[in-house]
């Protein structure tokens, strides 16, 4: 069953013209900068499918870049994203790809941060302004932004999950969905934990203390 609420049917409030090509694209960019966390200095967007063909007419480029700048789909600054990026000395580039993609509205974001980390994030826009982040640095994920979400980077080791969930339950945070991804056994793993409640800073600090934890990011709910 498809589950829709009033914020989907009479909403979202957004900058036009297209919920999938503009609002959804903006949310992919927005989610990406939240996941990356450190300031981005360079970003390259590779567009596939319908994104690749109609991105100019739909302002998909402006929306993606605006999202990376931290603007949400209803932010009127989106229209000026190119100028604002230039003022912030953020380098950007758009590439249309003719390669096949699983979903018609797919974008691959390559980003470099001020710490010279490089990131690769793939997102798809699934209609009505909704999006899914499909992969982060080559690791398959499924992140929708509809819940308060913890992204943990940690060492793949036994008991990690138990330690995380203990801290969450002690703080009365209910886990709605939880997924773990790892590159290889014993190597770096990524946890995506979607929770009903807001995740406060003290909980993030507590999680960061766990032995083997590399980093903990919180992405509060992007949309209702």
């Amino acid at each position, binding site marked *: 069953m498809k589950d829709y609420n009033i914020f989907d049917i009479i*909403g979202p409030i957004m900058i*036009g013209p297209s919920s999938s090509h503009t609002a959804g694209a903006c949310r992919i960019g927005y989610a990406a900068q939240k996941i990356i966390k450190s300031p981005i200095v360079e970003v390259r967007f590779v567009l596939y499918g319908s994104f690749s*063909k109609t991105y100019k007419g739909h302002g998909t480029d402006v929306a993606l870049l605006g999202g990376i700048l931290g603007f949400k789909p209803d932010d009127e600054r989106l229209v000026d994203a190119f100028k604002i990026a230039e003022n912030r000395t953020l380098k950007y580039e758009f590439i249309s790809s003719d390669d096949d993609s699983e979903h018609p509205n797919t974008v691959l974001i390559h980003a470099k941060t001020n710490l010279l980390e490089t990131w690769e994030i793939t997102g798809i826009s699934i209609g009505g302004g909704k999006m899914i982040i499909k992969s982060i640095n080559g690791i398959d994920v499924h992140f929708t932004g509809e819940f308060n979400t913890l992204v943990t980077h940690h060492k793949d080791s036994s008991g990690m999950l138990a330690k995380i969930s203990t801290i969450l339950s002690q703080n009365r945070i209910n886990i709605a969905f939880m997924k773990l991804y790892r590159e290889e056994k014993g190597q770096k793993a990524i946890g995506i934990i979607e929770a009903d409640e807001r995740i406060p800073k003290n909980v993030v600090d507590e999680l960061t203390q766990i032995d083997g934890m590399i980093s903990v990011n919180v992405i509060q709910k992007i949309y209702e």
Partner: protein
Amino acid sequence: MKLTSALDIIDYCHKSSVSLDALALAYETKKTEKTPEYIESYLKSVLKVMENAVASGINDVDNHIHGKIIGNDSIQLKKRYESQKTVCGETIAKAAAYALGTMEVNASMGKVVASPTAGSCGVLPAVLVTAKERFDLTEAQLIKGLLAANMVGSIVARNATISGAEGGCQAEVGTASAMASAAVVHMMGGSVEQVFNASAMCFKNLLGLVCDPIAGLVESPCAKRNAIGAANALLCAEMSLAEIKSIIPFDEVVDAMYRVGKSMPSSLRETALGGLATTKTGIQIATDLFSK
């Protein structure tokens, strides 16, 4: 409380003696875990965005608000209904101008409410603002209208589709028109049966409408189809308030709309590979746009 069809909703309203807007508010409160105050304040901001979009569209004297293909149509229509005797009456002419204007705002990357989608964002504001002006409706009454509209939209989204890529324009402008008609009937004090009769008639009148956007953009023929969606909503509300019934009940009409949508070839479902998009002029516009 499980509301999965118009029948469920009609039953519930009668058994519990609750109005459609009160039921919608209670249902959404439960689904979203938000307070009724939060939802009402959200709907107030929705109304503000809708009214601003209508105003920007029809007052754009310098034609700043235009897309890659469309622009200036709302103001032209406004000039006509303000200065001459209209062919279809001032109410319909206004509603059409407001719908065109909102779609022009959307095409120019202005702020709109996707209701239910960006491609159909002109219908609901056009009808609400027209009704507000004609009957001096208050914000509280308009919010009740939005809640009724939401009930219709969520049943369609649940049991069929509101996406042009899945069901063609009948699913987008059709749903918007059905929602707008529901809002009007409810605000005019119509019964819940009359609400769904109006919505059913709206779909029937637009059944089979394809989605064939020129150059793949949300502009043409979308804007003018929003105008017909608004006029259709007012017409069906009028018929339903006169106790005219839809021969086919709402739930069955929605099912028919879904089946029609599924049997449409993909060339007529938002791919810009058929219909008006592939006419000689449609192709020329796309070529000119993308060669820039």
